[in-house]
């Protein structure tokens, strides 16, 4: 029998014979590795997931016309959007504002794309329903009270060219459209003082120039990336002046960095404590084998040989435990992600070797110390149990 085969036999038989105790050690290592891989995966994914939650605050970037003469339409906007990496764009909502008459009162009407507005302003509370067809509109709560209109009411919306803007003939052009209120908009903000209709309806009323006044964007990106996008778009698309919504971007970066450091510190504390816990368990498992070490020494085994053998055992345990833990940890992170953020987590490939390496390292260190102290003692003393 070669030396190497003997070595492996010693290790495997020690693992198999002392099954229950090895299971205890293996379990400890696996738990440690699970916590390591689970928490680190969460730590890496939380900023992304939390960032998505922060998009509840609505638009963090707006496009305005860059000057008084500049004009832009949806094609210009799409060109500008191509500078924002696709995955990070949560929503886009174009807006165009016109003054219209409802019941002879001048009211600001905003034309928008309702599916876009839903993504950029998820906090809008609609009493009733979002408009789906042409001729349907949302009424700001303030306007609804002012005009005395409610859900389901129909009326005629009138638009006419402003007198000073009328052409030389002096004729003011007038267009009308019959509309129905499908929902009352509540936001607690200035939006309540407007009425909202689809962009197509507003264009039908005020002339189909395709012009937009403001485009709201909700982009899931850090402050620096937003600055970069704004710079890129500002230079590449001269008609559009991108602006960051400071209130949202500033606050988001403050809060998000706090949350990130919270998860980081929690992860660090949990990891340190768990690793020490794994180490003490391993130490306990090895310490109880002092008698065996003494016996082997008495039989003539060298210190180096004993240490190698015990380390081999420990490292094997560390490897198997680390592997199992890495898998379990990812499963845990996935569970957390689905339950908390209802989206799946991104798998960090590099975490598998790191977890295995960390658990091998911790187990190795935890074994090394008691084995060394055991080999240093006179075997006779160990065998006598003193």
């Amino acid at each position: 029998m070669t030396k190497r085969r003997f070595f492996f036999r010693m290790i495997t038989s020690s693992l198999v014979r002392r099954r229950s105790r090895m299971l205890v050690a293996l379990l400890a290592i696996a738990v440690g590795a699970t916590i390591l891989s689970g928490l680190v995966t969460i730590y890496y994914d939380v900023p992304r997931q939390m960032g998505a939650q922060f998009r509840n605050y609505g638009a963090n970037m707006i496009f305005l016309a860059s000057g008084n003469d500049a004009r832009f339409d949806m094609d210009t906007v799409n060109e500008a959007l191509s500078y924002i990496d696709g995955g990070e764009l949560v929503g886009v909502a174009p807006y165009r504002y016109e003054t219209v008459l409802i019941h002879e009162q001048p009211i600001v009407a905003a034309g928008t794309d309702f599916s876009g507005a839903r993504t950029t302003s998820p906090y809008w509370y609609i009493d009733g329903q979002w408009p789906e067809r042409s001729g349907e509109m949302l009424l700001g709560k303030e306007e609804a009270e002012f005009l005395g209109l409610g859900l389901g009411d129909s009326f005629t919306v009138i638009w006419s060219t402003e007198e000073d803007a009328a052409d030389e003939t002096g004729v003011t052009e007038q267009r009308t459209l019959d509309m129905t209120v499908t929902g009352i908009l509540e936001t607690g903000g200035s939006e309540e003082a407007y009425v909202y209709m689809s962009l197509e309806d507003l264009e039908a009323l005020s002339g189909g120039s395709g012009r937009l006044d403001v485009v709201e964007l909700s982009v899931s990106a850090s402050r620096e990336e937003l600055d970069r996008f704004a710079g890129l778009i500002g230079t590449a698309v001269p008609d559009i002046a991108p602006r960051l919504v400071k209130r949202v971007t500033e606050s988001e970066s403050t809060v998000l960095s706090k949350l990130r450091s919270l998860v980081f510190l929690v992860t660090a504390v949990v990891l340190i404590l768990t690793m020490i816990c794994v180490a003490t368990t391993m130490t306990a498992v090895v310490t109880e084998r002092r008698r065996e070490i003494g016996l082997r020494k008495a039989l003539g085994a060298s210190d180096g040989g004993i240490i190698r053998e015990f380390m081999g055992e420990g490292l094997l345990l560390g490897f198997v435990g680390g592997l199992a833990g890495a898998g379990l940890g990812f499963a845990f992170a996935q569970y957390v992600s689905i339950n908390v953020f209802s989206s799946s987590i991104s798998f960090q490939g590099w975490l598998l070797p790191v977890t295995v390496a960390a658990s091998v390292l911790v187990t190795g260190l935890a074994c090394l110390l008691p084995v060394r102290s055991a080999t240093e003692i006179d075997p006779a003393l160990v065998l006598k149990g003193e």
Partner: protein
Amino acid sequence: MFFRMIRGAFLLQKKKMLMIALTIALGASLATAMLNVMMDVGDKVNQELKTYGANITVVPKSASVINNLYEMEGGGSGEGSYLLEEELGKIKTIFWAFNIVDFAPFIDTEVTLPDGSAATMVGTWFNHHMDLPTGETLDTGIQNLRTWWDIRAGAWLDEQNAAQGADACMVGEVLAGREGLSAGDRLKVSTRFGTRELTVVGVFDAGGDEDEQIFAPMEVVQSLSNLDGYLTSIEVSALTTPDNDLAKKAAKQGPQSLSISDYETWYCTAYVSSICFQIQEVITDSVASPVRQVADSEGAIMEKTELLMELITILSLIGSALGITNLVTASVMERSAEIGLMKAVGATNGRISALVLTEVLITGIIGTAIGYLAGFGFAQIIGHTVFASSIEMKPMVIPIVVVLVVAVTLAGSIPAIRMLLRLRPAEVLHGR
């Protein structure tokens, strides 16, 4: 005899017992730290989210109608279309007064600048000092409600600084650029009620409409618009509990629709709707409504953070429980020779179990005590590093940790003891 053996065990096996105590202490400290942080994280995150500004606005009941009907340009004091300045202090006397973090009154008017152009001038509190009816004092104002303002030149207007006097103002970046104003300049503003010359103490970048406005102390704008003692709106920043079904029902159908017990629960919970309701109770002719952009998002983010922390806590509790169980099992099992000997000299199973369990539990209690203190320290480290404030000590954590440790120590030792008791003493003593 029993106690002598236990004492002996501790004195003679000091190292081994220390090891168990250490592991239990580690597990207990992990559980303590995580539970404390988890229970406090909602409040802490809520505080952080205050950087988004006010989540409640208070306006007069009939403001919009009157402004729209008569297109008023500042002036006239129709009853019910303004809020009263003298009532502001009452906001801090409502049931949830403690949850009101900041608030600031606003009044705005159109002013004419020296070059003839018009601008909006907003009167507000910057860092107003207030003596409350309750005897407390409070410093509040937009310095806390506009944390995202970037001061480009000069500094924040300091209301409490007598040297600046009342003739100071702050100007938005866009307006300052257009008018060529910078910090230290004098700016003359006039309305049909009078003229004031103000010193520009700061230029700010707000990234919005405010960049074209002038912000001045309340009293300046009130005298310029002849509205002494009146306000047009109040912004309130309050710590709130995320809405649940009860809060939604109350907000939708009005608090009157709730049953008496539901009403009490609702009134005594810091929902944004109940705080709004309480503000309306103390401010005459007012409508307080949640700013949905802030209130809704706050709720969502807090809920997610709390849930995330709960799950991480559960994982670390399981981890520390398994860690403790493991070590206890390992350390009981290695005592097979001792237990065999005891059985050989005639000890009953019950006595052996009692002896081993007492030993382990005493170690456990010592370990838990140390672990609790250490864990509390860890929680404070997290609190101070992340939120720059200490984590509140929740008494509830103590029983949870004690029960957890006792349960897992028993769970770890009983199966091991039972297994050892099943062995035949002769075999054990032979070392098989």
